[in-house]
């Protein structure tokens, strides 16, 4: 894996549907199209996962992106679009 992913960082779901456990051990499902009241993608913490597991979900599955990377890519889309 190319990058060392920090479990304490914020991530966003960018493709498909993620199923993760919240702090109360209840499973929640977040779809890539989900947005909050402000129209922003919800940020999630993946502190229960190891760095290599996050790398797998980001790089192999394409499920998540680092929130900072995603925002950067959105600015790029806006500038080019």
């Amino acid at each position, binding site marked *: 894996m190319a990058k060392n992913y920090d479990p304490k960082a914020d991530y966003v779901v960018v493709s498909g*549907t*993620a199923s993760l456990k919240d702090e109360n051990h*209840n*499973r929640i*499902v977040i779809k890539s199209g989900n947005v909050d009241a402000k129209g922003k993608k919800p940020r999630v913490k993946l502190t229960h*996962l190891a760095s290599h597991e996050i790398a*797998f979900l980001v790089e192999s*599955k394409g499920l998540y992106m680092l929130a900072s990377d995603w925002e950067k890519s959105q600015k790029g889309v806006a500038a080019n679009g």
Partner: protein
Amino acid sequence: MAKTVNAVNAKRGKVELVFDAALVAALASLTTAETIDISSIVKNISGGDLTRAVEKEYVIGDDEAIDDYDSKLVYSNLVIILLYTNGKDSLGTDTVDIGTILDEVAVYTTTDLTLPVIWSVAGGAVGDEERATGASDTRIVGLTPPVGGVDSSGKVQRTLTLSVNSITPATVS
């Protein structure tokens, strides 16, 4: 000689039941809303097949049918076969006896109780495919009484049938 059915498969998938706040409020034996892993007592899970109704309409003089696709998807009932030690298995924070809880949910009529299921045939590790039934529309429609003596260790078998209106595929993380 009595026949012995196979016990729980060691390579079984992961199955979880969602005990939500409404269920906790309704049943005196529960105090914690949580997702309970019942993999250890699930012998088999099947159903949830997706079908979409298509009506074929024929017009006089036209050989080809007009396909009228229904926008709604229909899922078959989800059938879970449980194999457990009657009255002695304890699962989750509230040390739930699954047989008792299912009996209580099945006969409860005061409010509309739902029992969503999350399962992963792959085992439920990070990155595996997973499916979840709708949080507000998964209901018990069938529950067999305990059938004793189905394996050599004296476990009982029950079959739980759930009506589902939606199933969401997801990736475990």
